[in-house]
């Protein structure tokens, strides 16, 4: 059972499917939900499998809910507010008991939608109607959107995307070199895994003062209309179009799933989601947490869990199968050649994040398969330059420690500073 390490001192009460839940001010819906000991936050699109939060970084679909009449909101990115109306989606009669989960039993391995009942007269028509009924996720929004302010159009010399280890160190170095820049960070505070990871050797968070650092600013795209590159950024429900001369991408990666049966059960989290809940929100997502996968990260996360009153089990083991009906209750693992079933009420999957190369690719960088880490990584030179005006630092280039990402940020910033000097007559 999950519990709060630090008790609630600023309570906020909101509503999920008509039921009140109280969380701490600053919680997201997903965190408050987990802290309240709840498990099923959504039902999956096809098989109606129960799902709970997984990545807590807005990079998966496990925690989508309807918030105040707007469908498919990532509940890990929405702060709770008093009286907020949250509804779980895609379930009949409700998300806790969803009879449509029968599809999960009928199609025990997978559903071959290409060939299933193809061309069977009459049944074909019924199938089309049933499929149409079951399709989609949320219901149409209740109301039209409020009037939006027109975008802010701006120009910057250097744009940095991501305020984690690499982005912050680059910002510090550019400040030292008197190079103007603007940094965009999606979270409400900079720091990334320095702030809520479990990397023990991680440097402290140092945010250079007096500089242009924007938090709560989500870069949603690199565009190149008329061959002039710019970022599209959403901040406070308003678009900003930021034209840049040079771009440093340090936006890290997204947790990826490890493949084993029932890997999507509520209670299975990405390792960084677990450390984020502990360090940022003071919430322990389970009493016995199986910490499986990548060795070093598993060890340090296990320490963090232990230090906060939880028990870490199966540390560094290979996950083979998760057990449980509505949430994870046990995990079969392989540990040093032994296969065993361990009881647990949460699982943390430790694995290097998948580089979030989308912006880099749109900005003209090359992306290739790295057969050592088995990840798609952004290709760069030693200084982190990956295209004409584009530099890349940190986990976009592959798995690395926070210290190594910090170093890459410094090197890339140095390279940008000298490129600017070289270009100035």
């Amino acid at each position, binding site marked *: 059972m999950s519990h709060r390490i630090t008790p609630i001192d600023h309570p906020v009460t909101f509503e999920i499917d008509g039921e009140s839940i109280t969380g701490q001010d600053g919680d997201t819906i997903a965190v408050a939900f987990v802290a309240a000991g709840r498990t099923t936050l959504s039902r999956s699109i096809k098989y109606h499998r129960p799902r709970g939060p997984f990545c807590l970084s807005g990079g998966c679909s496990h925690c989508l809910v309807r918030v105040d009449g707007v469908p498919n909101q990532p509940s890990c990115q929405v702060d709770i507010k008093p009286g907020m109306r949250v509804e779980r989606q895609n379930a009949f009669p409700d998300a806790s008991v969803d009879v449509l989960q029968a599809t999960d039993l009928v199609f025990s391995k997978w559903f071959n939608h290409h060939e299933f009942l193809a061309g069977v007269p009459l049944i074909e028509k019924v199938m089309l109607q049933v499929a149409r009924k079951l399709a989609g*996720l949320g219901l149409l929004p209740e109301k039209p959107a409020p009037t939006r302010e027109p975008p802010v159009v701006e120009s910057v010399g250097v744009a940095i995307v991501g305020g984690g280890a690499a982005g912050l160190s680059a910002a510090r170095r550019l400040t030292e070199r008197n190079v103007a820049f603007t940094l965009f960070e999606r979270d409400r505070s900079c720091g990334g895994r320095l702030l809520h990871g479990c990397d023990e050797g991680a440097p402290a968070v140092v945010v250079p003062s007096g500089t242009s650092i924007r938090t709560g600013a989500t870069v949603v795209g690199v565009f190149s*209309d*008329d061959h002039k590159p710019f970022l599209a950024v959403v901040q406070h429900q308003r678009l900003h179009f930021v034209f840049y001369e040079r771009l440093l991408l340090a936006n890290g990666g997204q947790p990826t799933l490890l493949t084993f049966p029932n890997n999507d059960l509520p209670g299975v989290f990405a390792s960084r989601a677990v450390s984020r809940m502990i360090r940022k929100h003071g919430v322990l997502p389970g009493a016995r947490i199986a910490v499986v996968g990548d060795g070093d990260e598993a060890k340090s996360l296990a320490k963090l869990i232990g230090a906060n009153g939880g028990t870490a089990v199966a540390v560094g083991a290979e996950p083979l199968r998760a057990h449980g009906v509505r949430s994870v209750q046990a995990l079969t693992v392989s540990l040093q050649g032994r296969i065993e079933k361990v009881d647990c009420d949460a699982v943390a999957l430790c694995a290097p994040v998948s580089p979030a190369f989308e912006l880099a690719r749109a900005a003209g960088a090359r992306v290739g398969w790295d057969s050592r880490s088995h990840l798609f990584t952004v290709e760069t030179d030693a200084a982190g330059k990956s295209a004409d005006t584009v530099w890349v630092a940190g986990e976009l280039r592959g798995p690395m420690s926070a210290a190594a990402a910090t170093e890459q940020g410094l090197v890339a910033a140095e390279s940008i500073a000298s490129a600017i000097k070289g270009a100035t007559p």
Partner: protein
Amino acid sequence: MSKALLCCCEDVTASEVEHAIEKGYRDIESVKRFTGFGTGMCQGKQCLTAVARLLESKAKTKPSQLMPFTPRPPLFPTELSLWASASFDPAVAPGGGVPESIGLTENALKPEAPVPSKAKIVIIGGGILGLSLAWNLAQRGETDIVVLEKGYLCAGASGRNGGGVRMQWGTPTLITLAQRSIELMKRFARDMGINVWFRQGGYLFLAKSEAVVSKLERAAQLHNKHGVPTQILTPDAAREVVPELTMTGVKAAAWNPLDGVIFPWPFLWGYATAAQKKGVKVETFTKVIGFEQSQHRIKKVITDRGDIECETVVLAGGAWSPAIAALAGVDLPNEPHRHEICSTEPLKPFLGPLVSVLDSGLYFSQSMRGEIVGGMGDAREPAGMNLGSTQRFLTRYSQALTEQMPQVGRVKILRQWSGPYDVTPDNSPILGRTPGLPNLIQLSGFVGHGFMMAPAVTERMAAWMATNESDELFERFTLSRFEEGRMEREDMIIG
């Protein structure tokens, strides 16, 4: 049950990807289209790595062949109302777009074995036209066919369109072809054993100017004459068809409930798989680099995997056709024009028909998966092969869509992409024999509607090729008509 999930947004399991591998798919783009992985709310953030790892271990795909699918903006789902808040200059032609071409070497995916050295018929282009022609010829017993496709199946316009299928056209030829196509689509699953999810939700055309109203009225008369039940509706009656629509500026609507939407990808595989079962060879990741000719005939098609000696060549390369024809010294008047398109988050079904404002080129429908898929032609789009995506498009489309249907303002755009229209001077296709090179048969120039015309056109082309009986389709719509000044004008083009 105990599924191992790879893509949680679309509920794609490891078993399903393994099935795709067994079917012979080895590259990420093909597996994506076959299984649907990576097309949901997260757009591959959670699953792409896991699928690539499975391909690496199970399909033995080499590292150089593992390329991520092209990431599509936006990086995170972003509301239509936000894109609509920007502005654009309608007087300026659009340019640029992402991703800019960076020379990713698809060559890595080229099969090592050479192509067959001989075939009776070589079809260039593995889009819907080429594949459905191959299947129709095979149905008639002609199976000594090689289809050449430079990318993966669905890489071109056939895999990039919105899947709209309509009988509402402006000329008798297209009306009757579309009627036949729809008949064939309705029995496609029976003929091919693969679901294409063809749904007849109708097409609702809206007209905002008197000129477009009279165009719709004229067309409706013609439709009725050919047995298409198109009705002209008042704006109020049109709102009964789609209650969420505002009728701002709308003067009239045209409504045919028999039009519909089909899922493009399985439509292609259906033809490809059925043709292959009959012995047709479909060679993907294979580029045509030249032709060997003598005495006004093509003797060999030269590819980057060897030469193919052949009797007949069919050019079905869509918007890429002019560049290929040029290799044979043939000048085609077609020009590629980029058309941008986008898809929203999946919503529970609420929108029955495909809605189009003929004045502006806006069109949108709800796919079988629940996404609102739509686009909007840009009259200022310059000719040229550009498959980039722009912010300008998102803004134009979002403004037009939210004006017509304000309730979608907070619906989020998941991804945008583009495909080329294959535009001819009179908006009609180029079909039949090439003047001076009679064993080169043209099958291109469909101006964005080749996808829906393919089943009917290629059924007739196969009959014409197999029997040599004359068919006016392949005499009227020839390449020579442009020199002879016989234009075949079609004006019911969206965008």
